[in-house]
C-alpha cells in the first residue's frame, strides 16, 4: 500500500463516517418531512429532534474533513470534480445551510408560522441534499468527470442514469439508516408505539433500497460499464458482504433486536461505499486518473498523515465523550 493510498483510505473512513452519522441525520429529516400534520406528527418529531439535537454539527463536520483532505492530498482529483460538478455541489451546500440553520434555530423560536417555515426548510433540505451528493458520486463513478478544470459537461455530468441512481439510493439509504437508528431512540425515550412505526418504515425502506440496488445493477451495466465490471470483479466480496449485512438487519428488525440491527445496517451502508471504492480502484477518476497521478507530493502526504493520526487521537475520545454524555442524560432525565 502506498502512502497516497493510506491517506486516501483515511479520507474514505471520514466519508463512511459522514454517510453513517450525517446520513442518519438526513434520514431523520426525511422522516420528519413524512411524519404528517403539525399535530399528528409532533410526538415523532420530538423523538427525532431529541435523537439528533445535540450532535448535529459534529455529524456534518465529517464532510468538511473529506473536502480538505481531498483538495490538499489529491488536488488533481478534487478540482475536476469540484469544477465540473459545481451545480449539484453548490445545491448540496445550500441544502446544508438551510438544514443546519433551520434545525439549529427552530428550537429557539416558538411562534407557529415561523416554526413551520423552519421545519419545512429542515425537512425538504434533508431530502434534496443527499440526492445531490449521491448524484455527484454517480457522476464520478460513471466516468463523467474528465481530468482538468471544468472539462466535463456541467449538466449531463449529474443529470444521467447513474447519477439518478446514486441520488435515489443515497436518499433511500439515509431514510433506512435513520429508521433503524430511531427504533432504539424511540424505545429509549419511552415510546414503544413510535419505535414500532420506525420498525415498519425500516423494513419498508430496506425492501425498496434492495430493489433499487438490484435495478441499479442493470443501470450500471448499461451506463457505467467500467464500474459494473469492477463491482462484479474485484469488489464482488464486498458487495456480497453488503447484501448479507442488509439481509441480516432485516431479520434482526423482524426480531426487534434494534441494537444489533444498528450494527448490521451500518455495515451494509459502509460496504456499499467500500464496494464503490474497490470497484474503481486504482482510479480516482474513471477512466484513467489513478491515485498515484492525483496525489500530492511526498512531504504533503506525510504531513497530512501525521496530522490525521495525531488529530484522531484527540478527536475520537472527545467525540465518544460527547455521545456518551448525551446518551447517559437520556437515561437519567425522564
Amino acid at each position, binding site marked *: 500500500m502506498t502512502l497516497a493510498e493510506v491517506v486516501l483510505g483515511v479520507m474514505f473512513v471520514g466519508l463512511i463516517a459522514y454517510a453513517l452519522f450525517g446520513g442518519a441525520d438526513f434520514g431523520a429529516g426525511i422522516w420528519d418531512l413524512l411524519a404528517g400534520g403539525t399535530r399528528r406528527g409532533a410526538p415523532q418529531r*420530538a423523538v427525532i429532534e431529541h435523537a439528533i439535537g445535540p*450532535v448535529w454539527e459534529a455529524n456534518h463536520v465529517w464532510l468538511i474533513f473529506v*473536502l480538505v483532505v481531498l*483538495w490538499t492530498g489529491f488536488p488533481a482529483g*478534487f478540482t475536476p470534480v469540484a469544477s465540473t460538478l459545481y451545480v449539484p455541489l453548490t445545491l448540496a451546500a445550500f441544502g446544508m445551510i438551510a438544514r443546519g440553520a433551520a434545525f439549529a434555530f427552530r428550537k429557539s423560536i416558538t411562534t407557529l408560522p415561523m416554526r413551520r417555515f423552519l421545519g419545512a426548510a429542515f425537512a425538504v433540505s434533508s431530502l434534496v441534499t443527499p440526492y445531490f451528493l449521491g448524484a455527484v458520486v454517480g457522476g464520478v463513478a460513471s466516468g463523467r468527470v474528465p481530468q482538468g478544470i*471544468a472539462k466535463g459537461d456541467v449538466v449531463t455530468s449529474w443529470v444521467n442514469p447513474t447519477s439518478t441512481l446514486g441520488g435515489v439510493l443515497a436518499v433511500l439509504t439515509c431514510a433506512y439508516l435513520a429508521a433503524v437508528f430511531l427504533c432504539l431512540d424511540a424505545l429509549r425515550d419511552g415510546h414503544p408505539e413510535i419505535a414500532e412505526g420506525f420498525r415498519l418504515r425500516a423494513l419498508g425502506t430496506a425492501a425498496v433500497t434492495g430493489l433499487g440496488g438490484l435495478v441499479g445493477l442493470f443501470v450500471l451495466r448499461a451506463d457505467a460499464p467500467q464500474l459494473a465490471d469492477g463491482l462484479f470483479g474485484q469488489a464482488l466480496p464486498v458487495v456480497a458482504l453488503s447484501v448479507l449485512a442488509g439481509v441480516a438487519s432485516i431479520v434482526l428488525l423482524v426480531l426487534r433486536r434494534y441494537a444489533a440491527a444498528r450494527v448490521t445496517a451500518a455495515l451494509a451502508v459502509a460496504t456499499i461505499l467500500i464496494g464503490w471504492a474497490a470497484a474503481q480502484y486504482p482510479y480516482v477518476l474513471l477512466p484513467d486518473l489513478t491515485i498515484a497521478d492525483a496525489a500530492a507530493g511526498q512531504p504533503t502526504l506525510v504531513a497530512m498523515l501525521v496530522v490525521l493520526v495525531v488529530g484522531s487521537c484527540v*478527536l475520537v475520545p472527545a467525540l465518544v*465523550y*460527547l455521545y456518551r454524555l448525551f446518551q447517559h442524560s437520556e437515561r437519567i432525565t425522564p
Partner: protein
Amino acid sequence: MLAGAAENLFPARMQMALSLGWHIVFSCFGIAFPTIVVFTEWRAHRRGNPILLDLAHTWAKAMGVLFAAGAVSGTLLSFEMGILWPGLMAPFGEVYGFPFVLEGFAFFLEAIFVGIYLFGWDRMSPRAHMLSALPIIVSGVAGAFFVIAANAWMNNPTGFRMENGRVVDADPVGAMFGPSTWPQFVHMLIAAYMVTGYLVASVYAVGMLRCRRDRYHRFGLLIPLTFATVATPIQLLVGDWIATTVAENQPVKLAAMEGLFDTGRGVPLSLGGIFLNDRLQWALEIPWGLSLLVTHDPNGEVIGLQSVPPDLRPPVNVVHLAYNTMVGMGSALMLLALWLGWTWWRKHSIPGSPWFLRATAVSGVAAVVAMETGWITTEVGRQPFIVYGILRTADAVSPAPGIALGFFAVAAIYAVLTVLTVVVLRRLARSHDTAAPQELEPVP
C-alpha cells in the same frame, strides 16, 4: 473557455467576498466570545453573583446561536474554494491546503466542546464546566491561526519552487510560516476581541439608553467593553507591525493603500482623497508621515505604484478608501477606549454622559466596519493576483458556465439567514429560557 473565465471573474469574486465577509463576523465570536463568557462565569462563581451567572448563561446560548451560523457559512466556504477557484486549488492545494486540514480538526473539536459546554451548564461542577470551555478557546484561536496562515500564504507565498510553470518541492509546513502569517494572525486575533467586545457592549448600551440601568445591563456593558478597550491600543501597535510587513513584502499593496504613485523619500501620509490620473487628489497630507510609519525614518524610501506596469496594480480607490475607513474607525474606537480608561482611572466608574452610551451603542458597528474594510484592504490590495506575484485571480477562477448565478443565490440565502440570526438573538435577549441550538429541547 477563456471567455467563460473572464465573465466569471467578477461574480465569483463578489460571491467569495460576500461569503467570507459574512462568515468572518461569526468567526470573531468563535475566537473571542468563549473567553469573555468563561471569564464572566468565573467571576460569577468567585463572587457568588447570580446576576453575573445569568449573564454568562445568556451569552453562552448566544455563543451557541452564533456558532451555528458560523458553522453553516463555513461549510459553504469549503465548497466554494473548489467550485469557484479550481485554478488555485489544482496547482497549489498541496502547498497551502494543509492548514485547512488542521483547521478541520480545530473546528471539529470546537463544535464538540461547544455542545458539551452548553449541555453541561447545570449538569457539571463549576470547575469541570469551566474546564470544558478550555478546548473551545484553544481550538477557536488555533483555527483562526490556520485560516490566517492560508491567507497569509496567498499574500506571501513560500514553501515551494516554480519550475517550468509547475510547482515543485512543496513544503506544506514551511508554507504556513511566511512573513505575513504572524502579523496577520495577531491583527485578526485582536480584531476578533474588538468586534466581539464592542458588539456585545453596544447591545447593552442600547438597553441602558432605554433606561434599563440595572446591574445586569451594567455588567453586560462593562465586561465586553473592558476586553475591547484593552484590545484597542494593542491593535494600534500591531497595525504598525503589519504596515511595515506589507511595505517590505507587498510594496504595491502599500502604495495602493496610500494612493502613492511615485517612489520617493520623505513621503507624506495621505488621508482621504480620490486617485485620478495617477495622482491622489484632494487628500489631507501629513508631511513625512508615510516614510516615518513604514520605515521609522522621515527620509525613508517608499515604493510607489509606478514601480509596476498598470495591469499589475490593484484598484487604488477601493483599497485606499477601505484602508482609510479602517484607520478612521480604529482611531474613533481608540478615543472611546481612552474615554473609558480615563474615567475609570479617575472615578472608578463608567462615564456618566449619555454620549458615552451613544458612542458605545454604535461602537459595535464601527468595529465590524473596521474589520471588513481591513479585509477589503488586504484582499483587494493583493489583486490582480490570487497568489501574490505568481497566479492571477483571472487564471484561477472556474470557467464553467453559469457561475454568475451563484452570487444571487448566496445573497438571497444570507439575507434570510441574517434576519433569522437576529430574530433568534433578540428572542434570547428577551426570554432567557430560549434554548440554544446545541441544547436539548425539553421534551413536550
